C-alpha cells in the first residue's frame, strides 16, 4: 500500500511537470511587470495601481467573496476548454453552451412550481448541464462522422445558441419591463447565497465538485484513459482498440455539459434569472484560463482565481487610481502570450536554423 501511494505521488509530479508550473508562474510575474510599465508610462503609479488591485480583490471578506463570484464561471469554462483539449479538441463553443445551459436552467427554474428544493434545484442544474451537452453534441457528431473541424462548428453553434437565447429572453420568456430577461426562478431552484450581502453563491461548490469530477474522469477512469490517448495520438489509440469517434463525442459532450453547468450556476446562483448578456465572454475567457492552467483541473482553478481577482480588483483599481480596467484585459493577454512564448521561441529558433519549412 505504501508503495502505491509513492507511485501516485511520483505520477502526479511527473504529469504536472515542474516546468509547466514554472512557465505559468513566470508568465504571470512577467505580465504583471509589463503591466506595471504600461501604468507607469500612462502616468500613474504602478505601486498604487497594484495595491488597489490587490485590495479590491482580496482586501476584505466582501472583496474576496466577490472575487470568488467572478472566479466561479471561469472555473466552469476553463474546465470546458481543458477537458475537450485533453481529447485534442478545441471547444470554442463554451460561450454558446453557457448561454443555452443558463437559459434551460432558468426555464426549468421558472416553469415548475411547488417542487421541493431537493428536487427542483438538482433538476434545473441537470437541465442546464444536459442543454450544454446537447449544444456540443452537434459539433462532436459532425467531427466524428465527417471530420468537420470543431473550431468552425462550435463557433457557428455559438451564434445559434446566443441568438436563440436572445429570442427566448425577448419574446416567450420575457419578464415585464424593457430588459431582455426572464422572470426570477422559483426559490426552490435557487442556489443559496453563502455569505450575507455578497453575491457568492453555492455555485462555487458546484464548480469545485466539477474540478474533482473532471480530474477523476481524466485520470482514474477507463473513459479518461481513452480520451487522453485519443488526444495525444489518435492513430495509436485506434491501434489500441479505442473508438476514436466515440471518445471525441463523449469528450465534447462532457465539455459542453461543464459549460452548461457554468451557465446554470450563474443563472440559479448569481442572477436568479436569465439576463441576456449575463456573460461578458466567460466562454472565451475559459480558453485563457485553460491555457494558463495547462489544461489541468487544478491549474484551471488557479487560472480562474487569477483572472477572477484581476476582473474584480480591476474595478476597485479604476475607482481608486483612474487606471482603466482595460489594463486587466491587457495583463490577461500578456499572460497568455508569455505562457505560449516558450513554444514560440522554439519555433523561432528552428526558423533561424533551418528555414520556415523545418520550423514546425
Amino acid at each position, binding site marked *: 500500500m505504501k508503495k502505491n501511494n509513492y507511485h501516485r505521488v511520483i505520477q502526479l509530479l511527473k504529469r504536472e511537470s515542474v516546468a509547466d508550473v514554472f512557465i505559468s508562474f513566470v508568465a504571470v510575474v512577467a505580465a504583471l511587470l509589463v503591466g506595471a510599465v504600461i501604468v507607469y508610462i500612462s502616468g500613474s503609479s504602478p505601486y498604487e495601481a497594484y495595491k488597489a488591485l490587490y485590495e479590491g480583490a482580496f482586501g476584505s471578506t466582501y472583496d474576496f467573496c466577490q472575487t470568488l463570484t467572478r472566479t466561479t464561471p471561469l472555473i466552469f469554462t476553463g474546465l470546458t476548454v481543458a477537458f475537450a483539449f485533453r481529447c485534442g479538441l478545441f471547444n470554442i463553443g463554451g460561450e454558446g453552451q453557457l448561454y443555452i445551459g443558463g437559459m434551460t436552467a432558468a426555464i426549468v427554474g421558472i416553469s415548475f412550481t411547488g417542487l421541493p428544493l431537493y428536487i427542483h434545484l438538482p433538476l434545473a442544474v441537470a437541465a442546464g448541464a444536459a442543454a450544454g451537452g446537447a449544444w456540443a453534441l452537434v459539433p462532436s457528431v459532425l467531427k466524428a462522422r465527417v471530420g468537420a473541424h470543431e473550431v468552425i462548428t462550435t463557433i457557428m453553434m455559438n451564434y445559434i445558441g446566443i441568438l436563440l437565447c436572445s429570442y427566448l429572453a425577448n419574446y416567450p420568456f420575457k419578464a415585464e419591463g424593457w430588459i431582455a430577461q426572464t422572470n426570477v426562478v422559483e426559490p426552490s431552484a435557487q442556489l443559496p447565497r453563502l455569505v450575507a450581502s455578497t453575491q457568492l453563491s453555492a455555485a462555487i461548490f458546484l464548480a469545485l465538485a466539477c474540478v474533482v469530477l473532471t480530474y477523476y474522469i481524466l485520470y482514474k477512469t*477507463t473513459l479518461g484513459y481513452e480520451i487522453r*490517448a485519443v488526444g495525444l495520438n489518435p492513430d495509436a489509440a*485506434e491501434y489500441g482498440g479505442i473508438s476514436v469517434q466515440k471518445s471525441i463525442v463523449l469528450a465534447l459532450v462532457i465539455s459542453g455539459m461543464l459549460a452548461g453547468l457554468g451557465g446554470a450556476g450563474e443563472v440559479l446562483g448569481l442572477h436568479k434569472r436569465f439576463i441576456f448578456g449575463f456573460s461578458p465572454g466567460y466562454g472565451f475567457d475559459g480558453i485563457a484560463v485553460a491555457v494558463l492552467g495547462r489544461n489541468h483541473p487544478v491549474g484551471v482553478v488557479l487560472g480562474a482565481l487569477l483572472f477572477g481577482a484581476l476582473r474584480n480588483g480591476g474595478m476597485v483599481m479604476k475607482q481608486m487610481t483612474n487606471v482603466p480596467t482595460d489594463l486587466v484585459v491587457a495583463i490577461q493577454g500578456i499572460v497568455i502570450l508569455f505562457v505560449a512564448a516558450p513554444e514560440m521561441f522554439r519555433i523561432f529558433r528552428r526558423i533561424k536554423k533551418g528555414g520556415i519549412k523545418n520550423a514546425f
Partner: protein
Amino acid sequence: MYAVEMRHITKRFPGVLANDDITFSVLKGEIHALLGENGAGKTTLMNILYGLYKQDSGDIYLNGQKVDITEPNDAIRLGIGMIHQHFMLIPPFTVAENVVLGIEPEKNLLLDREKAIKDVEEISQKYGLIVDPKAKIQDVSVGIGQRVEILKALYRGAEILILDEPTAVLTPQEVEELFKIMRSLKEEGKTIIFITHKLKEPMATCNRITVLRKGTLVGTVDTGKTDISQLAKMMVGREVIMEVEKPPHQPGEPVMTVKELEAYNDLGIKALRGVNLILRKGEILGIAGVEGNGQLELVETLTGLRKASAGKILIHGEEMTNHSARNIIEAGVSHIPEDRRKRGLILDFSLAENLILGSHFKAPFSHGFQMDYDSVYDYAGDLVDAFDIRTTGIHSQVKYLSGGNMQKVIVARELGREPDIIIASQPTRGLDVGAIEYIHQKILEMRNGNKAVLLVSADLDEILSLADRIAVIYEGKIVGERDPRTVTEEELGLLMAGGSA
C-alpha cells in the same frame, strides 16, 4: 592528401554527448564507410560536415584548408553534397526539373527545359546514373529517386558525396546498382562517405571503414584487413551472435486464413489485389517485398485498422473480416506496427500507460468504468523486468526512451498479452544490433511456444534467418512462396521486383 579531415569534433545535445572528440579523415577518391549502431553519432557527424549542425568544438579541413561551415549553402559551395534517407524531391516535377531546382538554367526569364534535360543527360551518362529526365518523380521507383538525389548533388558540383543509409529502402538488385554507381563515381575522382549500420555493405564497396560507438571513435580499418565479425565487435563492443539458432519447425493447424483480400490505401488506390495466406501454429511466415507493395495495408486490414473492400479473414476458423481492432485484439492477435512512434506508442503517455494500451479496458486494469492503476503499475513493473526495458521508471514518458527501448515496450506489451497470433511489421527497423538480436530471439520464442507469427520485413536477411516459409508480396499480391532453406537472395530479389523466378 585528405579530402576531408574532421579533427576533435565534439557535439553535445541536451543530455547526450553525440560526438565526443571524434577525429576522422577521408582520402580523396575513396569510398569510406561510417559504420555504427543507431545513436552512435554517424549522422550527427555528417550533419556537422554538411552544415546542418554546428560543432561545439573541433575543426574541419577540406583538402588541407581549414573551413568554416555554418549552413548547408557553405557545404554546397565547398563541393559537399548529402543524400538524406528521406528524399527531398517534388513528386509532380520531372527528374530534370528536380535536379536543376534552385539553380535553373534560364532563357527569357523562363526555365530552359531543353538545357535542363541536356545537362541532366550529360551528367547521367558521365557517371552511369541512368535516368529518364522527362519522367515525373511520382512515377519512378525509390531507387531512381535516389539517383535523382545524387544527380542533384553532382549538378551542384559536389566532389564529396555523403550518403546517409542509402540502402535501407532498396531491393537487393537496386543495392547492387547503387554500389556500381558508387564505384563509377569513385573512378571519376569523387569522394564518397557512406553511412550504414549494416556490416556486409561496407565490406563489398568501401576502401576503409570508420566505426563509431556511442558518440566515440572506435577506429578506422582497411576493408582488406578486417572481417565482419571484427567489425561487429567494434560496433557493439562485444562478441555478437550473427546466426539465430532455430530448432526444426512443426507447423500445426491454421489459425489465420486470408482469402482474396482486397483493400485500398490512403490515397484511394487499390493496394491489396487478392491476397491469399494461411498462417499456422508454431511457424513464422515471412512476407518479403519492397516497401510500398501493400505490406502496410495488409497488416492494417488484418488487425482491424483498415477496411477490406473484398475477401475474407478467418481467425481460429471464425470470420473476422472488418471487425474492430478491439475484437481482433480480443481474438488473440497481437500487432507490432511498423511505425512505432505514430502507431505503436503514445509518446506523451508514461511507460505504464503504454504497456496496457489494448488491454486497458479489461480486468485487472479496468473494472468497467474505473481504472485500477495499482495493478497497472504492478504489471508494468513486471514487464519492465521481464523484457529488460532500460528506463528511469514506469512513470517516465516513453518519448524519452531510445528507439530500441521504445520497440521493447511495444514487444513487451504485445507479447506480454500472451497472444496466439503475432503480426510483426518491420520489428527491427532502425534498431541496433543488440536490440535486433533480442527481438529476434523473442519472436523465435513465440514460434517455439507454438504461436503463429506473421513477419513482414523489408530486410531480406531478417526474413531469411527467421522465417519458416517466405511469401513475396508485389503490387498487392502474393507472387510466390519459397522455402528459406533453399531459396537464393537473387531469386527473392527477382520476385520482389515483379519478375517471375
